[in-house]
């Protein structure tokens, strides 16, 4: 593992991009930061600007308005970056698949590195997902 990967995978800064979700994944993401789970112990913090982020957390089914925003956000993340699709909606659009306002799924807009399914995924599942992602990023040549 080179120094760049090591620096990148330590203390991940997360930008949370909500693309028309139902809020539930979002409150569970915030829940990860609060005392019971407290991922800030590992240097994982939510940042206010996408330009400071290492990871883009995407929730929800993009609609016509948020689709453009997500594209724009991804173009602004400093590369290399990781993209995580949180929740069943972001992973596969589930029951909003037939909606007239749901043009495509998240992975058709941005390349997704990890999928965390669940409606909503428990905070433990999100932490497990991030751990797997870090392991994957570190094992990459």
């Amino acid at each position, binding site marked *: 593992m080179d120094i760049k990967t090591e620096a990148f995978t330590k203390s991940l800064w997360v930008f949370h991009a909500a693309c028309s979700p139902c809020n539930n994944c979002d*409150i*569970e993401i915030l829940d990860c930061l609060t005392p019971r789970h407290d991922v800030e112990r590992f240097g994982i913090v939510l940042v206010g600007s996408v330009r400071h982020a290492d990871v883009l957390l995407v929730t929800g089914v993009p*609609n016509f308005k948020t689709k453009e925003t997500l594209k724009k956000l991804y173009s602004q993340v400093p590369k290399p970056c990781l993209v995580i699709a949180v929740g069943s909606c972001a992973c596969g659009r589930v029951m909003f698949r037939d*909606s007239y306002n749901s043009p495509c799924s998240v992975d058709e807009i941005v390349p997704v590195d990890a999928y965390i399914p669940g409606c909503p995924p428990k905070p433990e599942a999100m932490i497990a997902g991030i751990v797997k992602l870090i392991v994957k990023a570190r094992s990459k040549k």
Partner: protein
Amino acid sequence: MSHKIVVPIGPYHPLQEEPEYFRLYVEGEKVVDIDIVIGYMHRGVEKLSESKHFDQVAFLVERICGICSNSHPFAYCLAIEDLGKIEVPPRANFIRTIIAELERIHSHLLWLGLAGHFIGYNTVWMWAWRYREPVLDCFEMITGNRNHYAMMKIGGVRRDIEDKDIPALRKILDELCPAVDMFKGAIMDDPVIQARLVKVGVLTKQETIDWCVVGPTARASGVDIDVRRDEPYGAYGLVKFNIPAAKDGDIFSKTVIRIKELYESISIIRQCLDIMPKGEFDADVKQIPPGEGIGRVEAPRGECFHYVKSDGTNRPVRHKIRAPSYVNVASNKVACVGGTISDAAITLAAVDPCYCCTERTAVVDRVSDKKILNGFDLVKLSQEKTEYLKKKVI
């Protein structure tokens, strides 16, 4: 020199069922006007509902909002039961009431925490969310999921509350009471919180009526409306509870009302557990007749309204949903104007709409379209004001 700039807040936000985008027009520090644009989180739920059969719609409307994820299916089931004149077994009514009140506790704690975060008291945030965890454990124990409980079903509930779970539920409520006491003291007696919230974002009684505001936001301005008392549904007609009210209409009153409602909710759940009868919890509905029905539920944020029309097939012909924030958000038009930018974050949050949107705020110069402040700066500005007041007050 007056320098008019625009503060766009939004555009998409994660913490609420209605999407909105605020454009604040400011002169110096003062907010002079506000525009509200919605549509960013539009997923076509009403139309999707017409393509699903009646049982599936209960799951669909649950996904309108993650925080009110019981109120929407509750209102939908009431609408169908009104349509088909379906009698719900008494035990199911009690279970529905318990879930609805647990949801109110979790939602109000969530709001208190985020309100604390916005005025720079992260301690309040961490406290509130720490005490919210046992409530989510309750949900997990009773319904099997922390959020999106999937308890509501046309004609009853999906799962029973088992006798072995009730002592644990009572224990969690007993432990929550001292936490809320501590919280009440910490918020109501704190001079800095008072300095930040008293007489900020005031909504007078007349404005509340004019803008059709509902829920705790209306009750804080002296408009005494609550569907639970005015048109009892579920088991609310069988339990005793007070509706906390205030007159001032500022953010402090809204906070106090929400804290008082926590006590009322705890008391309602205890009464329900005491008098809950044994027996069936599902009416086993086979056919939905043609007709139309409405369902009204007092969600944590106010009245949630569902209208369903059926033509005798297994799908609704029309499903209309009006969630409480739809009207509450519009009242920001009067609550925000006249205040300062540093108060805008908490004023917009006071009706319990969404928080993450304010974190994505950017102040844009109207002439050059250049970004001056982003959401982070806005929250920082708000937090700095608290720091400043802290030094001044103490």
